[in-house]
């Protein structure tokens, strides 16, 4: 494998600048996405509705730890035929579909613009600026099939496929720096494209129940189906029959679930 000797100027003026450009563009994208975040206007009613739904869900999941009477009392409050909460409350809601609601549309557009467009633009610019020379060598052997993809602009037929051009170095940077962003910018950063794309794909499935009537109806049905299974039925015998290990229970430091 012929070892090429490359000019040091390439290292100084091509490799390093591409790294810096990719990293800084990512950081800028994070801050731009923060600035462009549209205000989510929440009314008091919306907040209280979502809290009611959460309370009902908690009741369904943890109902087995409270006595049967208490559970039935709460279920009655929600599901009673005449004046249960889910039966009574009808909200005047216009369900916003993604096409007609302007705020959701602009959100989608903003997401697309801030993420995909810079990558394409800068990739094209780098390809145009830094073209015509070999940039670096990837340490692993690649087959000849990759040559036209990775060596755009270099017209040598017998050159190893491991010697790549600057465009492929740029894309390698983009993919590699993705996880570095969560190191440096903390969680929930706006520079991590893969997470955002994942969210977009799953967000289409779980459309926000801005249609609270439907959510109430679904919750009512689910609560109807829930039965009270008293999980603490034999709790007295359980506790009495085993050795109670109360050693560490009242000390100052409890082992927490934080790794």
């Amino acid at each position, binding site marked *: 494998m012929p070892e090429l000797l490359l000019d040091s100027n390439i*290292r100084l003026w091509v490799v390093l600048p591409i790294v810096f450009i990719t990293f800084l563009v990512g950081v800028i994208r994070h801050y731009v996405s923060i600035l462009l975040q549209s205000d989510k206007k929440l009314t008091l009613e919306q907040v209280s509705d979502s809290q009611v739904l959460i309370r009902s869900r908690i009741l369904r999941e943890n109902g*087995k730890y409270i006595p049967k009477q208490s559970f039935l009392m709460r279920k009655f409050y929600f599901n009673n035929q005449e004046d249960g909460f889910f039966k009574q409350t009808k909200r005047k809601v216009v369900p916003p579909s993604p096409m007609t609601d302007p705020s959701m549309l602009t959100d989608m557009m903003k997401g697309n613009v801030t993420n995909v467009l810079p990558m394409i633009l800068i990739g094209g610019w780098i390809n145009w600026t830094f073209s015509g020379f070999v940039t670096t060598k990837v*340490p692993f052997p690649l087959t000849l099939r990759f040559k036209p993809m990775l060596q755009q602009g270099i017209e040598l037929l017998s050159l190893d496929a491991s010697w790549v051009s600057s465009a492929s170095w740029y894309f390698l940077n983009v993919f590699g720096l993705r*996880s570095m962003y969560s190191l440096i910018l903390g969680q929930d950063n706006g520079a991590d494209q893969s997470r955002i794309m994942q969210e977009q794909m799953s967000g289409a499935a779980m459309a926000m129940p801005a249609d609270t009537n439907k959510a109430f109806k679904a919750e009512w049905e689910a609560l109807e189906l829930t039965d009270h299974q008293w999980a603490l039925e034999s709790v007295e015998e359980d506790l009495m029959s085993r050795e109670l290990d109360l050693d560490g229970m009242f000390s100052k430091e409890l*082992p*927490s679930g934080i790794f």
Partner: protein
Amino acid sequence: MAGVVAKREGPQFISEVSVRGNAAVLDYCRTSLSALSGATAGILGLTGLYGFIFYLISAFLLSLLLILKAGRRWNKCFKSRRLLFTGGLVGGLFTYVLFWTFLYGMVHVY
């Protein structure tokens, strides 16, 4: 008041915040390790298959260390131990390849 006795299973009260925090810590460890081992591989001049084997070895060592740190109370922090082994391997691979190529280029090509 006869209800069916429900069998009590394992820890049911899971704090969302803690789960997310623990996953973030794992991610942090994995990314840092990938970056450092990539730099090491580049400086050492590993090529081809050796490089990937080095990544797998270092990932495995990280998993061992994490299990050692979690100790006997891994049950309290993680749902399953498999997550400690395989969490974030592919993301780490990309970071590893990036740093590997970068340092290899810096040291051996120029």
